[in-house]
């Protein structure tokens, strides 16, 4: 079974440039998460979807970050006008929601962003 796929693996930008990250979750997983992981820190939730609906985007810097999952499968996270503080690895994870606790999250390898 294929795992969570993310692209690109690496991106290097100048401040002010835009970048998009793409995620293909595990087939059949209805829940998709985007986490930001700064160097030497734990993953921090940015946004998560159940099918195509946004469940929680309270931690997403809405002025420059946006995320969509239009058909409830693949997802794109976009950063407009990147800042040096956005330097981090962006992790996508998926899971299946069965109505109880959040189950196991399956993570992709991440997209490492460096903003110069």
């Amino acid at each position, binding site marked *: 079974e294929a795992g*969570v796929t993310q692209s690109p693996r690496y991106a290097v930008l100048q401040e002010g440039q835009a970048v998009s990250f793409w995620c293909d979750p595990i087939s059949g997983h209805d829940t998709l*998460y985007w*986490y930001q992981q700064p160097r*030497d*820190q*734990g*993953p*921090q*939730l940015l946004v*998560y979807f159940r099918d195509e609906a946004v*469940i*929680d985007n309270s931690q997403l810097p809405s002025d420059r970050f946006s995320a969509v999952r239009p058909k409830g499968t693949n997802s794109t996270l976009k950063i407009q006008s990147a800042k040096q503080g956005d330097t981090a690895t962006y*992790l996508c*994870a998926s899971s299946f929601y069965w109505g109880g*606790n*959040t189950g*196991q*999250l399956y*993570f*992709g*390898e*991440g997209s490492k962003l460096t903003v110069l």
Partner: protein
Amino acid sequence: SQWGEENLQALSIQEGEDVTMNCSYKTYTTVVQWYRQKSGKGPALIILIRSNEREKRSGRLRATLDTSSQSSSLSITGTLATDTAVYFCATESSALGRLHFGAGTQLIVIP
């Protein structure tokens, strides 16, 4: 942090030694998940313990959960060089329905 966290630390031990990592959280959680992240990879679940369990074992791994002190621990016995990784605990509140990750513990196992 409002949620699960460990003191960010680095542990360096010799292969074959046992190690225990701790995690404390500040609000009620229904489950604690422990993840391992190897260099250049995403985190991967290694053990999950629910609020009605005090202990969970999986191979060389042992997790404990003390809901009264709001803490969890992860022990690895007979460490191997391949156990070198960052270990995170993640907690969840049913009110939020999402996992919050702690700061992580960097474990280096020297062969």
